[in-house]
C-alpha cells in the first residue's frame, strides 16, 4: 500500500511540474483557436477531422473526443475544416485573442463526388502527414461493405483483412498482430478492456456494429499513453448517440437481429444510444419434435448503451456500458455461459483553450460458468477476471510545434482462477483456487514536436509498475529440466495486502516522420511494451475457459521491443486517388509463455511449475494499397512475415515457428457500385498454412498406438494453404423522399468455391468397423490415419435486411 501511496504522490508532483513548466511558456504574440468538430446530422464528434490554415499551410486534427486546439500568431486566417465524406467548411477567422470555434460538418451525399474529394484528401493526407505508423483505421461504413459470414457484420473479421493481422483459422477467437499471440492485443471499448472478444467460441466478435463509431488498430509506434500488452492496441469507440433527432436502425439476418435506438435527451446537449443484438436459432427449439432439443438453449446477445451530457463548452460527461453473454444448455442438466461486461464513465474538461483533459473510470468483468447437474451428481465450475481503474489523461497544445500528452492509470485486478463444486452420489466438495489480486499502475509523458516543416517527432516515456498482492501463496520452484514439471521447493504464505511479486518497467516510445514530398513520407518508430497478465491457452484455438493469470515470482512480465520503418505515398489526381504504404518491422519478445507437454492449465494449484518461458521474434514486411473513391473501391493488403520462439525444453532448444506463423498473407477487398441501387462486394484471402507438429513413429502400449516424433520437434510441418472468396450483393430500393423508412437487402455467399480449408490435421487409430456387430464389435484396427479437420468446408449463404428510420 505504501508503494501505491508514493506512486500516487509522485504522479501528482509530476503533473504539477509539467503544468508549471508549461505555464511559463509565454505566448503573448500568439492566440489559440480551439473547439469541437461534430457531424451536422447527428452531432457525433468526429475523430481525426482536419483543421487546415491556408495562409500558414499548417494543420492539426481533432482528438478522440472531437476536440482540437491550434496556437497561431495573431492574425486573420482562412481556416478549412474537413472530414472524410463530409462537406468541407471554410471560415475566415480574425484571431486576435483565444477563440472557441465549434464546427458541424454536413455529410456528403454519395453522388456529389466533386466535393467529397476534399474531405477524403484530409483523410488520405493523414497517411503521409501523421507521425503515427503501423495504424489501420476502419470506419463502420467500410466494415459494413465487407461480405459477412451469415450476415453478421464483424469488426474483428474485418481487421483480419489488413496487413500484419492474421488468425489461426476459421472460428478461432481473437487475432494475431505482427507475430503476437491473441492475448497480446489490448482491446479497449470506450477505454475499458475487453478480455474475450468472441461470441460463439470465436466465430463472431462481441461488438455490435450499430453502436460502433470508430475502429483503430495500432500495430507499432504505439504512443506512451497506452500499455499493458506487447503487440497491439485495438481502440473501439462507441457512438455517442444522435443529439439532433431520433433514429432507429436495425437488421434482420439468418443468425441474429440487431436493433438500435438513439436520439437527443436535450437537443444539442445530451443524447443516448441503446443497441442490442440477439441470435435466435434457439427460438425454434420448442417447435421441435425432439424432446431434448425442446429444453435446450443456445444463443448469444449483447447490449450497448451510452449517454452523454454536455454540461457547458468546457465540460462533457459520458457513461457507457456493454453487456454481452453466450449461453448454451440442455434443460437443467447442462449449462455453459460466458460474457464480458464493461462500464466506463468519462469526463472531458477543457482548461483554458489549450489543455484538454479526460478522466476515465471503468469497470470490466469477464466470467464463465460451466454447470452439469443430475439428481445426485453434478459439477459446477466458475472463473472470472475483474478490473477497476481510474485513468486521467491530459493533452497540452503548447504551441503550433508541440503537443504534450501526459497522464497515468491505476488499475486493479481481481482474478478468480477457478472454483469447482463437485457433487458425487449426494456428497459435495468445493475447491477454490484462491483469488489473486494485483495493481498495475502507470504514468507517462509524451511530446509531439514539429521540428521543421518536413520533420516531426513523437517521443515519450511510460513507467509501469505491477504488484501481485496477497492473500495468496508464493511457490518457490527448482530449475527447469526439459520436459519435467519444475519441482516445488517451498510454499510460502503471503498475507493479505502484502506483495507477492513486484515489477517495474520503463517503456520508451519514439516515432519520427520525414516528408519527402507533399505526397510522400518516410516514418520510423520504436516502442517497448510491458505486459503483466497472460492468457493461458495451450489448445489450437483459445477456448472461453482459458484463464488469465498475473505475473508472479515465477512468471515474469512479457516485454516487447519493436522497430519499424515505413514509406507512405499518395497518388492524388483528379480521377485517381490511391493510398500506398509499406512497412517493415522487427519485434523481439521476452518472457513468452509456453507449456511443458501435457501441462494441465485448468484448476491447477501448482500452475507456475508447468509453465516455460522463452524468447520470441517476429519480422516482416507489409504492403497496403487502398482506393477510396470511385465506383470501384477497396484495397489490397499483403504481408510477408515470420514469427518464432525459442524455449528451453521445447524443440531441443532451437527456434520453432509459433502456431500462428503464416509466411504469406494476402487480402483483396473490393466494392463496386453497379448501379444506383445495386452494389457488389468481394473479399479474397490467401494465407500460407500454419504449422503443426506431425509424428514420425508409433508406440504400441497396452493395445493403443501413440504418435511419437522421435526427434522431439515442434511445429515441423505446414498445413496446406488457406484461401477463400466471399461475395455479397446489396440492393437499396429507391427511397421515397416522403418516407423516413430506408431499407436495404444484402445477399452473401461465404466461401464461394467451398474449399475445405484445414484448421488442423490430427493422427489417430482407424476407428472400428461400424458395421461389425456381436462380440466382434469391440475390435479396433491397428491402422493409423491422418485426418483433416475443416471448420466451414462448404459455401454458406446469407441474407440480411437492414433498415433505418
Amino acid at each position, binding site marked *: 500500500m505504501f508503494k501505491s501511496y508514493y506512486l500516487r504522490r509522485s504522479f501528482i508532483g509530476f503533473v504539477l511540474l509539467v503544468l508549471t513548466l508549461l505555464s511559463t511558456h509565454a505566448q503573448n504574440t500568439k492566440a489559440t483557436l480551439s473547439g469541437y468538430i461534430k457531424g451536422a446530422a447527428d452531432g457525433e464528434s468526429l475523430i481525426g477531422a482536419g483543421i487546415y490554415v491556408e495562409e500558414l499551410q499548417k494543420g492539426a486534427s481533432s482528438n478522440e473526443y472531437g476536440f482540437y486546439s491550434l496556437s497561431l500568431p495573431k492574425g486573420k486566417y482562412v481556416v478549412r475544416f474537413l472530414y472524410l465524406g463530409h462537406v468541407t467548411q471554410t471560415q475566415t477567422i480574425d484571431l486576435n485573442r483565444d477563440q472557441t470555434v465549434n464546427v458541424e460538418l454536413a455529410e456528403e451525399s454519395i453522388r456529389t463526388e466533386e466535393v467529397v474529394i476534399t474531405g477524403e484528401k484530409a483523410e488520405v493526407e493523414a497517411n503521409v502527414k501523421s507521425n503515427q505508423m503501423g495504424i489501420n483505421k476502419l470506419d463502420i461504413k467500410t466494415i459494413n461493405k465487407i461480405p459477412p459470414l451469415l450476415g453478421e457484420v464483424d469488426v474483428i473479421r474485418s481487421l483480419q483483412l489488413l496487413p500484419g493481422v492474421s488468425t489461426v483459422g476459421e*472460428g478461432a477467437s481473437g487475432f494475431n498482430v505482427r507475430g503476437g499471440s491473441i492475448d497480446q492485443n489490448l482491446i479497449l471499448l470506450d477505454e475499458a478492456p475487453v478480455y474475450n472478444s468472441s461470441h460463439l*467460441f*470465436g*466465430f463472431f466478435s462481441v461488438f455490435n456494429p450499430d453502436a460502433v463509431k470508430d475502429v483503430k488498430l495500432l500495430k507499432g509506434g504505439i504512443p506512451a499513453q497506452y500499455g499493458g500488452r506487447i503487440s497491439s492496441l485495438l481502440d473501439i469507440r462507441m457512438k455517442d448517440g444522435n443529439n439532433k433527432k431520433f433514429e432507429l436502425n436495425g437488421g434482420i439476418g439468418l443468425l441474429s437481429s440487431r436493433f438500435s435506438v438513439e436520439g437527443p435527451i436535450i437537443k444539442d446537449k445530451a443524447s443516448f444510444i441503446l443497441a442490442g443484438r440477439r441470435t435466435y436459432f434457439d427460438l425454434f427449439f420448442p417447435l421441435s419434435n425432439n424432446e*431434448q432439443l425442446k429444453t435446450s438453449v*443456445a444463443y448469444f446477445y449483447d447490449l450497448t448503451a451510452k449517454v452523454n451530457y454536455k454540461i457547458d463548452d468546457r465540460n462533457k460527461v459520458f457513461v457507457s456500458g456493454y453487456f454481452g453473454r453466450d449461453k448454451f444448455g*440442455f434443460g437443467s442438466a*447442462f449449462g455453459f455461459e460466458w460474457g464480458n461486461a464493461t462500464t466506463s464513465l468519462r469526463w472531458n474538461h477543457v482548461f483554458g483553450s489549450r489543455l484538454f483533459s479526460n478522466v476515465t473510470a471503468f469497470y470490466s468483468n469477464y466470467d464463465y460458468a460451466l454447470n452439469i447437474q*443430475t439428481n445426485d*451428481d453434478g459439477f459446477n465450475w466458475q472463473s472470472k477476471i475483474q478490473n477497476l481503474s481510474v485513468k486521467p489523461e491530459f493533452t497540452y497544445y503548447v504551441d503550433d510545434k508541440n503537443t504534450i500528452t501526459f497522464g497515468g492509470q491505476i488499475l486493479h485486478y481481481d482474478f478468480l482462477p477457478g472454483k469447482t463444486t*463437485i457433487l*458425487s452420489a449426494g456428497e459435495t*466438495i468445493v475447491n477454490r483456487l484462491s483469488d489473486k489480486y494485483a495493481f498495475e499502475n502507470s504514468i507517462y509523458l509524451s511530446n509531439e514536436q514539429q521540428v521543421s516543416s518536413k520533420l516531426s517527432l513523437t517521443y515519450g516515456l511510460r513507467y509501469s509498475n505491477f504488484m501481485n498482492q496477497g492473500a495468496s501463496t508464493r511457490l518457490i520452484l527448482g530449475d527447469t529440466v526439459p520436459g519435467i514439471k519444475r519441482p516445488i521447493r517451498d510454499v510460502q504464505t503471503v498475507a493479505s495486502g502484502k506483495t507477492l511479486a513486484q515489477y517495474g518497467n520503463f517503456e520508451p516510445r519514439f516515432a519520427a516522420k520525414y516528408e519527402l514530398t507533399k505526397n510522400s513520407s518516410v516514418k520510423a518508430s520504436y516502442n517497448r511494451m510491458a505486459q503483466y497478465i497472460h492468457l493461458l491457452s495451450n*489448445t*489450437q*484455438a483459445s*477456448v472461453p475457459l482459458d484463464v488469465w493469470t498475473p505475473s508472479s515470482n515465477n512468471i515474469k512480465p512479457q516485454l516487447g521491443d519493436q522497430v519499424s520503418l515505413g514509406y507512405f505515398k499518395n497518388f492524388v489526381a483528379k480521377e485517381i486517388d490511391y493510398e500506398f504504404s509499406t512497412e517493415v518491422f522487427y519485434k523481439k519478445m521476452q518472457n513468452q509463455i509456453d507449456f511443458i*507437454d*501435457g501441462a*494441465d492449465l*485448468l*484448476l491447477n494449484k501448482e500452475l507456475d511449475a508447468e509453465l516455460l518461458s522463452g524468447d520470441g521474434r517476429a519480422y516482416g514486411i507489409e504492403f497496403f494499397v487502398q482506393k477510396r473513391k470511385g465506383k470501384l473501391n477497396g484495397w489490397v493488403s499483403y504481408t510477408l512475415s515470420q514469427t518464432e520462439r525459442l524455449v528451453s525444453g521445447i524443440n531441443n532448444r532451437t527456434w520453432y515457428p509459433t502456431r500462428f506463423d503464416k509466411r504469406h498473407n494476402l487480402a483483396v477487398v473490393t466494392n463496386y457500385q453497379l448501379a444506383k441501387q445495386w452494389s457488389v462486394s468481394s473479399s479474397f484471402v490467401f494465407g500460407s498454412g500454419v504449422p*503443426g*507438429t*506431425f*509424428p*514420425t*513413429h*508409433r*508406440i504400441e*502400449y*497396452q*493395445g*493403443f498406438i*501413440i504418435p*511419437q*516424433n*522421435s*526427434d*522431439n520437434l515442434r511445429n515441423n510441418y505446414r498445413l496446406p494453404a488457406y484461401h477463400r472468396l466471399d461475395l455479397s450483393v446489396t440492393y437499396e430500393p429507391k427511397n421515397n423522399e416522403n418516407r423516413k423508412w430506408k431499407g436495404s437487402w444484402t445477399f452473401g455467399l461465404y466461401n464461394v468455391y467451398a474449399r*475445405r480449408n484445414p*484448421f*488442423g*490435421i*490430427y493422427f*489417430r*487409430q482407424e*476407428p472400428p468397423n461400424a458395421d461389425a456387430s456381436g462380440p466382434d464389435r*469391440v*475390435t479396433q484396427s491397428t*491402422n*493409423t490415419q*491422418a*485426418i*483433416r*479437420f475443416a*471448420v466451414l*468446408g*462448404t459455401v*454458406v449463404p446469407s441474407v440480411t435486411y437492414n433498415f433505418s428510420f
Partner: protein
Amino acid sequence: MQLINNFRLLVGILVLGFFTSCEDPISVELDEGKSQLAVDALIKVNDGIQQVRLTLTNKYFDNSKPAQGVSGAVLVLTSNLGKSYPFIENPATPGNYLSADTIKGQTGEVFSLSIEYQGQEYFALSPLVRGTVIDTLFIEDRIAEFGNTAGKFAQLIARDSVGVGDFCWIKYRLNGKPDLRYNRLGAAFPADAAFAPGSADGLEFIFPIRNSINGDEGYLIGDVIDVDLLSIDAEQWRFLKEMEIQLNNSGLFADPIANVRGNLFNKNPNSKVQAVGCFGMARVSRAQVTVQ
C-alpha cells in the same frame, strides 16, 4: 483431460452442428525420424505371471505389421526391500518377457525395472500405491435423455480413500476382449474419484467415472463385462493423461500434438539414445457382470 474432452464433445454438438465442419482422411508425408525402444510394462502385484513387452517403434503409417518385438534384452525388476525378479523372454513370442512367478509387494515399496539392450541400460521407478477397490458393478436400464440412448448400461461403484493422490485406471473387457471402440484408454483413469487430483477427494467415483464402462449404445443381453480397477502411481497417471489427449485429439480446441512423456531414463545421462513408453506397478481389483 477427460473433462475437456467432454466439453469438446458438447461444443462439437452445439456449435459445429450449426455449421458444417468436416473431417476426412488425407495422405501426408512424414519425416524419417528414427526407431526407438518402446517399453510396455504394467506390472500387477499378486496377479500371477507378469509380462513386459519390448518393441521397436514403427513408422507412424506402417500399417502392414505390428511392431517388431525386441529380443535379447536383459530385464530385472527389483525393489528397495531387496527383492529381485528376473523377466525371461518367451521364445514363442519375441519381445515378450515373463516373470517366473507372482510379484509381491507392500504399499510404499519402490520397484525399479532395469533393461539392458544393445549396450544401453535403461531404468524406471514406480512405487506400489494403496489400493482402491470395487464396491459393486451392476447393469441398469436407462431411458433416453439429454442425448443418451435408452438401453442397458453398466455402473461401477468405488470410493476414493481420504487423502490426495489416489490414481486409478479402469480397464474393461467385453466378452473377453478389450473394448477399444471409443479410444478412451479402456474406460477412465480417475484421480481422487474425479478427473483431477484433489478435486473430489474421498468421495464415491463421480458420475462420469461410474458411467465410464459404457459406450454410446447400451449392452446386449448375454454380454459379459469384466472390469479391472488398477491402482497406479502418479507418473503412470500422467502418462495416461497425456496419451489420452493425443489419442482423442481433434476439432477446434485440439491440443497441440506433442510427444507423450515416458518415465524411462538412460543410466548414462549423456547418451543420445532414449527409450519410450512406461513402466508402472499396480494393484488390481476385479469384478464381472453378465447382462440379463
